């Protein structure tokens, strides 16, 4: 009984709602349902790849890659240069602190610090560097997404560092370094040809997951992003909540494509990971 019941329960609780929601969104996107539906059409899908959706996906990808890449670079630098300091109990525990702040609060703090009327701008005025907020560079709601990147870095850098510190210890990279060094390898060879590949192999699935999460980030770009281009989640919501009912099928088309990209990516990643394990 339980043999069938448990997988059925999982299907009903987790997979069925997802399947139904993607199904409804798909139908809406091709004109199968909806208030203004005039029959089946692929027009909304066709429109996606000519305008906002494509820009938004590329912008989201840029933000996700830059955030994950930046956090990885910083975490690796901190690992290789400051590793011994994190053997201290208090320093190690401090790395958990940023993980206690919700993304919307991080976005609010970044806004209060880096906006034209924020703390840094006030400091610059008080110290005589600038005369007013208009002279302060745009660090939030800017075209390059600097504010969003700063928020993402704040959230994920300590987490990546924690994971890397654990990978370093679990893979006994200190011992590998000693052995390689005694065999005559220089520090560059040890770092880049021995330690880095081992660390990256351990971190890779997490890195991909974070790239997917960052692409779908909502509250941080909502507060810190500009009005165009927008990140994909913000754009979908904006399309859906506009007064123009004609935008609703477009929003559902975007949601379906975005969901499909996420599902295909994670499936590929997990199956590929499985194949490597099997080898």
């Amino acid at each position, binding site marked *: 009984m339980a043999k069938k019941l448990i997988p059925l329960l999982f299907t009903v609780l*987790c997979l069925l709602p*997802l399947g139904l929601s993607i199904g409804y969104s798909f139908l809406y996107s091709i004109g199968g349902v909806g208030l203004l539906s005039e029959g089946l059409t692929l027009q909304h899908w066709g429109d996606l790849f000519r305008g906002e959706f494509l820009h938004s996906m590329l912008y989201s990808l840029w933000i996700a890659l830059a955030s994950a890449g930046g956090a990885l670079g910083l975490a690796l630098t901190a690992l290789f240069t400051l590793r011994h300091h994190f053997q201290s109990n208090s320093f190690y525990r401090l790395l958990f602190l940023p993980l*206690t702040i919700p993304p919307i609060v991080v976005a*609010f*703090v970044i806004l209060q610090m880096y906006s034209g009327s924020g703390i840094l701008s006030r400091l610059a005025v008080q110290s005589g560097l600038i005369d007013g907020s208009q002279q302060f560079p745009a660090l939030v709601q800017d075209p390059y997404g600097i504010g969003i990147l700063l928020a993402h870095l704040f959230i994920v850098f300590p987490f990546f560092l924690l994971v890397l*510190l654990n990978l370093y210890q679990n893979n006994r990279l200190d011992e590998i370094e000693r052995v390689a060094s005694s065999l005559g390898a220089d520090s560059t060879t040890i770092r880049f040809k021995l330690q880095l590949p081992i660390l990256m192999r351990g971190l890779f699935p997490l890195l991909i997951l974070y790239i*997917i999460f960052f692409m779908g980030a909502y509250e941080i770009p909502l507060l810190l992003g500009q009005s165009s281009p927008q990140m994909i989640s913000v754009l979908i919501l904006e399309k859906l909540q506009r007064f123009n009912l004609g935008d609703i099928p477009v929003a559902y088309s975007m949601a379906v494509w975005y969901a499909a990209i996420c599902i295909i990516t994670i499936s590929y990643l997990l199956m590929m990971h499985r194949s490597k394990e099997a080898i």
Partner: protein
Amino acid sequence: MSRRMVLGLLFLSFIIPFGVLIYLSVSTQWYYPALVSHPFTFSNWLSFFDGRSGLLKSTGLSIFISLMVSMIATSCGFFISRGIVYYTSSRWWLVSAYFPYVIAPVVLAVMLNYYFLQIGLSGTVFGVMSAQILITLPYAVILFYGFWNRNIRNFENLVATLGGSFFDKVMHAFLPSAKGLLVVCFFQCFLISWFEYGLTQFIGIGKVETLTIMVYRFVAESNPYLAALAGTVLIIPPIILLFVNRKFMFRKGLGI
């Protein structure tokens, strides 16, 4: 720049957000370009405790939703993961558990909203909880998936051989072995629910006023003082959880 200075700057950057939140929560009339020359007040905190700002009610609601969601997700996820490991052979069951989890919650909410409207769950606390369970439950399944290894199965068989019922297996085999993981899962699900904004906003249509919703509302109303206050209240439970949870979180850390 010495390594100690870099380390100091690093941790300063971790501490600053907490300082900014507390500083703004006791500030008022913070007009540009004043930095410290504005009045300070505890009236924001008083309005929190006497319920005028509505934040006390939001705090209670957020705690209720997060506790319920984490309890349901942890308990259901524990037994569902057992069923999937024991009674299925295809890896797709595990892979499919990632699907609701990797799609941005707000996009999931957009796609789910039609059904929530039809059932009458939109704009209700129960609706928000149901939607959050759709994310936290697969997370719990993924987290517990690795727990059901050969040792646990042998342990379970031993209890059965000695005449134990399923209840005995739960009490004497599962729970003692999974205690640590259950606590970690409960806290993680609590935090996912506690931090959630987009899905809560869309399914709750602004009627379910959790703390994250209030933060955004105060920011939109250009009231950074109450937004900072709500933000401060939001980070208190995670810090408490971090303190309570340190036994499980720090155990594997660098042998500390």
